[in-house]
């Protein structure tokens, strides 16, 4: 053994082939640290915050003082930082690598956006501050609104919806308000089978009956079948374009014309706007309403499940029904906030308010920062590179994975594969979990529903060729293993913080909050 004279070995001398991964006493694995729940390590007496003491006056709480303990554990600041830092390391994230979740547009989140959103003039202003004191905030909303209208070629934009699904709700409420204003109650909304689940859920929420639009074998809306179904009972069609098979709806203009001729309106799910920003304006295709996920196309961070932001662009036909509040630029260059106090008769058509306050201001500042960073030339490059990256993946893998619409022309910003051709008993899930071991976040799986074992891959424009090549190599290897029937793949992931989790158990015996062991045992 190579050793210094003090006895310190300087080269590895021993490889334990029988126990390559011996157990540890703590359960930790070096940098991968197990972390208990705050309820297991904190106490209700511990705090990580110091206060300046004040004199306590006689309580004026109406005799409703809290007597019982709440049961909220506290940690010191050091323990808090460590708890959440350790937990963070059990997450995959865009900052770590390729996150090709189809339909979610997981692109790089520029840090300038974070810096700008934290400027006190944006972060530390109250939504009900007098309008004269928040002119800069209203200017941000107005400037972003103008960009969104120009990029989409639409007449108006409702900025307040809190996320994509909330934007869908806004669009459908505007459509319903417009139809009711002309005394034309209609009851049906047509939605393609390949749509995001939020589309039918939103339509049903607005009181509509949902019917499927059939698709052609090449993965697009069947125009003839759609035309045949249109009639006086159809209020709107909801179409995702580019659609969730990653294809542009070539007949979009003809679809819109037919829908309008039948007295109905066109809602476009704008989740996939990243594919066409700067190249196609939905307004030119006859769209009446479309939400824009600022957290997808315009790079605001996904935050582990939000916050999102879902402004909705509206056509001339729907603009009068836009929700309160909204920002108006006055002749003198200042900005007014149109809300209940100021709406008056001028905006009597508004269908009302969808949220307290003005929407996701913190996302507006980030999105505007992103848009200004790219400019008109950069945004056009964004969609171009996003589509190029997806086609590069499609054509690099269609020899090993089944691409059901590979013959339907170039894909847009996402590439779709199916589980056809995998060995008996091997599934899309196995490939997805295998990708985890290869150091990637899996693609969207089992969506869209129209393809068996769907794998929907959206690389986005912020991936380098080197990153794509490594991903392609990994996926090719996994596809070959799944086709060859490599049983080991069914156990993946092996190297993640957890192995496959039992979702059936979680749903059958839901444990949704932490309960002290003694109490839990007593209850059983």
């Amino acid at each position, binding site marked *: 053994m190579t050793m210094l004279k003090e006895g310190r070995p300087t080269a590895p001398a021993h490889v334990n082939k029988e126990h390559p991964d011996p157990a540890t006493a703590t359960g930790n694995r070096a940098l991968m640290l197990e972390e208990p729940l*705050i*309820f297991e390590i904190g106490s209700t007496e*511990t705090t*990580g915050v110091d*206060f300046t003491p*004040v004199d306590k006056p006689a309580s004026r*709480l109406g005799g409703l*003082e*809290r007597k019982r303990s*709440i*049961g909220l554990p*506290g940690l010191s600041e050091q323990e808090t930082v460590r708890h*959440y830092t350790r*937990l963070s390391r059990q997450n*995959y994230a865009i*900052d770590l690598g390729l996150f090709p*979740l189809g339909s979610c547009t997981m692109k790089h*989140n520029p840090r300038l956006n*974070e810096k700008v959103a934290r400027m006190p*003039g944006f972060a530390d*202003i*109250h*939504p*009900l501050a007098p309008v004269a*004191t928040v002119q*800069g905030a209203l200017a*941000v909303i107005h400037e972003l609104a103008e960009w969104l209208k120009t990029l989409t070629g639409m007449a108006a934009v409702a900025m307040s919806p809190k996320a994509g699904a909330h934007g869908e709700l806004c669009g459908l*409420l505007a459509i319903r308000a417009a139809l009711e204003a002309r005394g034309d109650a209609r009851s049906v909304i047509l939605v393609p089978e390949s749509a995001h*689940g*939020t589309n039918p859920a939103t339509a049903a*929420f607005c009181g509509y009956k949902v019917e499927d639009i059939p698709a052609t074998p090449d993965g697009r809306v069947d125009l003839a079948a759609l035309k045949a179904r249109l009639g006086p009972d159809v209020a709107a069609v909801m179409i995702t374009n580019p659609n969730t098979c990653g294809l542009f709806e070539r007949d979009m203009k003809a679809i819109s014309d037919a829908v309008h001729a039948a007295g109905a309106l066109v809602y476009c799910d704008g989740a996939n706007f990243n594919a066409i920003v700067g190249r196609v*304006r939905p307004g*030119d295709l006859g769209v009446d309403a479309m939400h824009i996920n600022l957290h997808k196309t315009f*790079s605001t*961070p996904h935050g*582990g*499940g939000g*916050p999102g932001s879902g402004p909705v662009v509206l056509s001339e036909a729907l603009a009068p029904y836009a*929700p309160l509040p909204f920002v108006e630029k006055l002749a003198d260059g200042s900005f007014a906030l149109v809300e209940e*106090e100021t709406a008056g008769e001028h905006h009597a058509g508004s269908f*009302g308010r969808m*949220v*307290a306050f*003005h929407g996701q201001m913190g996302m507006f500042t980030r999105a505007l920062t992103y848009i*200004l*960073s790219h*400019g*008109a030339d*950069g945004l056009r490059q964004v969609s171009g590179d996003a*589509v*190029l*990256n997806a086609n590069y993946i*499609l*054509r690099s893998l269609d020899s090993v994975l089944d691409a059901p619409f590979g013959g339907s022309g*170039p894909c847009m910003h996402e590439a779709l594969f199916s589980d056809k051709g995998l060995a008996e008993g091997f599934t899309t899930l196995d490939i997805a979990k295998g990708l985890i071991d290869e150091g990637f976040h899996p693609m969207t799986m089992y969506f869209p529903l129209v393809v068996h074992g769907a794998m929907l891959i959206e690389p986005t424009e912020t991936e380098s*060729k080197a*990153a794509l090549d490594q991903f392609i190599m990994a996926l090719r290897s996994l596809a070959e293993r799944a086709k060859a029937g490599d049983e080991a793949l069914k156990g993946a992931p092996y190297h993640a913080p957890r192995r496959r*989790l039992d979702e059936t158990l*979680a749903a059958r015996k*839901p444990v949704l909050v932490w309960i002290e062991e003694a109490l839990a045992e007593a209850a059983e």
Partner: protein
Amino acid sequence: MRYLPLTDIDRSAMLDVVGASSIDDLFVDVPAEARLSAKIAGLPDHASELAVERHMGKLARQNLSAGDAPFFLGAGAYRHHVPASVDHLIQRGEFLTAYTPYQPEIAQGTLQVLFEFQTQVARLFGCDVANASMYDGSTACWEAIGMARRITKRGKALLSNGLHPHYVSVARTMAKFTGDDLVYRTPECDGESDGVELLREIDRDTSCVVVQYPDILGRISDLSSIAEKAHEAGALLIVVVTEPVALGALKSPGEMGADIVVGEGQSIGVGLQFGGPYLGLFACKSKYVRQMPGRLCGETVDAAGQRGFVLTLSTREQHIRREKATSNICTNSGLCALAFSIHMTLLGEAGLRELAEINHARACEAADILSAVPGVRLLNESFFNEFTLVLSKDAREVARTLAERGILGGVSLGRLMPDAPELANGLIVAVTEMTTSEDIRALADALKEVLA
């Protein structure tokens, strides 16, 4: 372009693989008349980080930020001190740039946080279970009304006149389309809540009674008798909490018999941000869990028997149930839930109670000093950190005049409820641990002059 890694050499090599001659060729499926051949005219080109920061900084400086003025605004959004470690931790890329934990093996960080968050919210509200968050308090409130309709199969909701007027507006917007019958009267400017009227109106058609606690005017009422009467009639009590810090001092809604408790979590960890993103809190009795909207995180085990967490009961949700889902919500307020949970962990029960005591003490001091100003009357008999002053003048005008003097003195009832001229002189004043005695003195002095 600093965010785009492909070089022209890369692009050309990739186009060769794809079999296209240019990027434009990949858009062949877009009808020619809709395809733009060049960048959109009339918009600026890309800009440097420095140039963008300058532009945005200029806009930011056109706002009067709360830290630069004596500040008393509340009415559903509160200014509290957020410890430095909260913002540091939520900016860790593994939290900030992850998404909804669809792949639990590599999302245990987010999932464990959600499980802890759900437990914190459930305990704070005195409920059995809580979900992983909604968009904000106002949308959580109408989701709760919809949930009560599904549970009771009745459509009449009684909204207390102490409910935030924006929340009422949101519920009204939705009711136009869902067909719910909402009963609501504009509040009167006095110290009494409408508990007696609500008790009288509960009947066998009532799905729910919706009461804010403390209410929009800052008043605090015992809700036990409403809960009892509602339950006798087969209806639910929904309690709305817009200031969760109050529950460090007050009995929880669950203790008073609430079936569903919703709230705005912005006060803890999130900040003002001109109204969003905020954090919808949603909790209920466990027997109603399958009617809840939104994501739920649950405990389970992995293939090796280790404890882990997953999203669960998804058969309620849109991506599985589509048009039969309990809600259309998908993306919620994950990062705000994280901020709330970190701040709550730093506080702990002892810290939350102390924070609540300080807020109440500051508010008592402010109420005494401000109500001694000629032309000012304190409406509340009870309050936590927010109360309503009845002024001798239209409070909208007063608030604007105070702002001209650099004081953000309160939210006028006239702005929130322009249809109720009898409320025009009401000013809602919020006081937190951020408010100093000098701030209170400055507001009192200014009010004295403005009202003279």
